[in-house]
């Protein structure tokens, strides 16, 4: 199981434990059990359909985030709390989530990523506009005069170089 998928499952479990905390045993265990079963069934089904672990994780997190409001209302119904308390709790959760995300981003920036996760940064503009880079034009060959000047300079810098070998003997036709 990939780190992303394991993290997503852990986040869903943690959230379920958080909003069922302090409830009576029966409804608490029932809700936790149902979510656990759903996570397993979804994971198995998606895996058999060939979905990537990252895709499964993203789907799980989306299902979690989109249901947070109803989780809190359900919790309030269980506790018979007035709706305005749920509204306040919702705002508090949103604010706490923003602070948490900000803190997490700051903490992750300070960490050295493990080699497996060390990749180049994603260039968003390149993803949006996948323009091919212009191929580099090779430099033009030197003119004969430049070549002679460069060769003279070379032999001036390296005088110890042996002279070039003589040309092979020409065989005369008999």
């Amino acid at each position, binding site marked *: 199981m990939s780190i992303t998928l394991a993290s997503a499952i852990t986040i869903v479990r943690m959230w379920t434990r958080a909003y069922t905390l302090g409830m009576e045993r029966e409804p608490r265990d029932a809700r936790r*059990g149902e979510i656990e079963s759903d996570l397993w069934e979804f994971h198995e*089904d998606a895996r058999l359909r060939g979905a990537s672990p990252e895709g499964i994780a993203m789907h799980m997190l989306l*299902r979690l*985030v*989109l249901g*947070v409001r109803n989780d809190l209302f359900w919790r309030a119904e269980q506790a018979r709390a007035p709706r305005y308390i749920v509204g306040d709790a919702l705002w508090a959760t949103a604010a706490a989530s923003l602070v948490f995300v900000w803190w997490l981003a700051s903490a992750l920036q300070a960490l050295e990523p493990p080699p497996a996760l060390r990749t180049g940064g994603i260039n968003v503009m390149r993803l949006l506009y996948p323009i091919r880079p212009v191929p580099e034009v090779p430099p033009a060959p030197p003119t004969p005069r430049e070549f002679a000047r460069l060769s003279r300079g070379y032999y001036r810098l390296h005088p110890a170089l042996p002279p070039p070998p003589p040309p092979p003997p020409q065989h005369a036709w008999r």
Partner: protein
Amino acid sequence: MLLPLELAICEAASALRERATHEFHGYQIAKTIGDASDSRLLTAYGTLYRALARLEKMGLLTSRWEDPAIPARESRPGRRLYTLTALGEATLASARAREEPARPRARRRLAPA
């Protein structure tokens, strides 16, 4: 008066029953609803299970936990199995009759192949 999701759950339960699946678990119903609506994203956990709890409270569904020996044998978590009650079927039938002109397409998709 049922909410759209509650109605969709009852429709999906009825469709599963027509396919000889009398008891269903939460993920199964989410998948059936997703397939029927051509949605790639399944119903959110909180939304789905809150609606299921409400339907059970209204008496349209009943639920039981499966025998613990089965998940233990299959190495998976236990399932909470729901069943559409007679009251649920009657409520669904009256909702269908009320919304007949507006919802023929969705029901056709849920019908067994």
